[in-house]
């Protein structure tokens, strides 16, 4: 290693800055998709709330652009010295891409400012304004695809990278899977972050009109988040399948060896996301006059979701990897799942459990729709705990992104580029679950702190002005 970063170490510095950059990038890529859909829907339905929601959210997105660039620069600096060999390798392979990336990022930024600041001037030419928003999202997605190519290449490079052309390097075995997974996850994050802002605004609102608006905004954000969240496990399966087909030993390392317990924790994280989103819906349905009959389904729904979550999380054993044996004094059968219950540890059982959770979430939403159709929604009269659920869900969502991102990176084992460029630094090893959890936790808390600042500037001060 040519140079290390003092105190925190090069790996931790790259980890935190890279993760923060990805969090901000996910937000500025996901939220505008949400914003344009809201603007279009508001224009079509003549519902001014969508217009307000879209405009207020876009102001916050614009503020987040600066932090995306700052964290990106910090990430680049952290990579330059300690990991110069990796950077040289990637620049050699993806030279044209690293030229296109800043160009598209510049176009994206220009479009973002144009979109936000022409909101008033183009109020009478809504079609043109929405078109700018669509262009912003198209360019933003291209930026994501470019960098996903580099990330995917590091895990699944083509068989002969020396002779591979640029398209072969870009269109590697997991590029499409990663694109799909990240695109859906970004929209999910955008929805949940909007719901988080709405929760804060609702809890501090002074007038009933404001409470009604932010109650509705939280509902809409959560709806978008949950609707896309339901597609995420499927996108995850597609991505995992691509990894498995590329090299089964990576899949073994992930599902059976050192990362196996990471996936037990992943089961907990995704279960918590669904539980939080369902909790919000079942608490908020109480503000619909005439929805009382539907509350009879609340307990059975949660019973099934909780049972399915347990099935998803049941481990095959309590051993951290394939080479660790049972501690002294503990019999192997005490920490290995009994024979008759072994099916609970298999993928088939996990897949059924996930399907049950998704299905129940969908049915909850259908109950909600029916209740609204038959009764009267009293916007603004939602119980405060529902708003705290909208705080809980993004916290879990952001942590999950950081944690799952770490799994993807750790899957390369002791390689910078799998089977091509070996990691010979002192940080070549796979970090244990606890270390990984702490790092994901730090990144999540820093992101939240910065977002709280952005949000305060964008919503509170913006409103006062």
């Amino acid at each position, binding site marked *: 290693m040519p140079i290390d970063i003092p105190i925190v170490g090069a790996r931790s510095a790259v980890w935190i800055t890279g993760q923060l950059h990805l969090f901000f990038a996910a937000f500025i890529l996901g939220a505008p998709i949400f914003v344009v859909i809201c603007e279009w829907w508001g224009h079509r339905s003549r519902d001014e709330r969508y217009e307000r929601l879209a405009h207020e959210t876009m102001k916050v997105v614009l503020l987040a652009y600066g932090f995306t660039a700052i964290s990106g620069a910090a990430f680049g600096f952290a990579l330059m010295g300690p990991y110069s060999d990796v950077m040289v390798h990637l620049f050699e392979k993806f030279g044209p891409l690293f030229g296109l990336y800043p160009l598209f990022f510049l176009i994206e930024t220009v479009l973002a400012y144009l979109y936000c600041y022409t909101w008033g001037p183009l109020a009478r030419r809504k079609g043109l304004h929405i078109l700018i928003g669509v262009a912003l999202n198209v360019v933003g997605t291209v930026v994501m695809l470019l960098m996903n190519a580099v990330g995917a290449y590091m895990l699944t490079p083509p068989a002969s990278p020396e002779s591979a052309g640029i398209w072969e390097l870009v269109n590697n075995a997991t590029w499409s899977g990663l694109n799909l997974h990240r695109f859906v996850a970004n929209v999910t994050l955008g929805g949940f972050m909007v719901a988080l802002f709405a*929760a*804060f605004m609702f*809890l501090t609102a002074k007038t009933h009109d404001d409470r009604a608006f932010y109650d509705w905004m939280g509902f809409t954000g959560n709806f978008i988040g949950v609707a896309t969240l339901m597609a995420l496990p499927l996108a995850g399966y597609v991505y995992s399948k691509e990894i498995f087909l590329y*090299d*089964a*030993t990576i899949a*073994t*390392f992930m599902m059976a*060896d*050192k990362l196996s*317990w990471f996936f*037990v*924790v992943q089961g*907990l994280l995704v279960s918590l996301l669904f*539980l939080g989103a369902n*909790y919000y819906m079942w608490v908020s349905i*109480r*503000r619909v*006059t005439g929805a*009382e009959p539907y*509350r009879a389904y609340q*307990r059975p729904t*949660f019973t099934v979701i*909780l049972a399915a*979550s*347990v099935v998803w*999380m*049941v*481990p095959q054993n*309590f051993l*951290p*990897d*394939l*080479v*660790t044996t049972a501690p002294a004094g503990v*019999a192997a059968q*005490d920490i290995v799942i*009994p*024979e008759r219950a072994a099916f609970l540890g298999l993928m088939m059982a996990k897949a059924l459990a996930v399907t049950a959770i998704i299905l129940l979430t969908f049915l909850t939403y259908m109950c909600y729709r029916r209740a609204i159709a038959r009764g009267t929604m009293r916007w603004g*009269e939602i*119980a*405060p*705990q529902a708003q705290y659920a909208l705080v*809980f869900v993004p*916290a879990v969502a952001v*942590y999950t992104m950081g*944690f799952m991102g770490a799994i993807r990176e750790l899957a390369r*084992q*002791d390689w910078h580029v799998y089977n091509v460029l070996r990691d010979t630094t002192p940080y070549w*090893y*796979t970090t*244990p*679950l*606890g270390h990984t*959890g*702490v790092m*994901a*936790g730090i990144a999540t*808390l820093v992101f939240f702190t910065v977002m*709280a600042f952005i949000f305060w500037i964008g919503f509170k001060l913006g409103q006062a002005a």
Partner: protein
Amino acid sequence: MVTQRERTSGAHVHTAAGGRAVTPTLKRVPWGVIALLAVVWALPPLLPEGFGLRFGRAFQLFFTAALVFSVAVFWLLDQEHIPQPKSTAGVLGSIALVYVATVGFLVAVAVAAPQFALPRPEDEVATADAAKRGEALFWKPEAACFQCHTIAGRGGTRGPELSHAATVAGSRVPGLAAEQYLREKMKGGAAYPFKVPGYVPMMPAFGQSLAPDQIDDLVAYLLTLK
């Protein structure tokens, strides 16, 4: 407007519209939870050893934690209207508290889960003994043979067990000695013509990723496993 809903158990929950806090009565005995706890803790020791359903202590604790968590979820669902801070600072503080507590819980779970040990410098084997070098390589991520093969109860099960590799390898392909078979199979992986029955052919061709002397070391090690 106040609505009232009667549960099948006889307890009453009052729903107040417009933000009035109402506390649910807690008269019910959670028989379901008690029964499940009894199943988790009392049932396994009563089952015969060979029945195959004796959950160990770690699993009992796991299911108990899941039950406690589930009770907490249902308790939260029963709350009609929790109070909220009045001031902006109070709201911001409460949101930060929920956020930090959530992330703290998730980190605590990750820390409490089983942890594998970090590699130690002394694990690097500098020996003239080829079999010892091969043994070290077998368990290192560089070759990662252990991910799919078991030796003496350790390792994965996707590939054939190798505890008696030296004995079994000689009988795989007629006319091919154990050493030759192991070397060729290791080099060719799934592409090698002979597939072990009952296993999906997925072995990587290590001839492309390991040096010839590393394959020699691995073969030397496997030949000691009689």
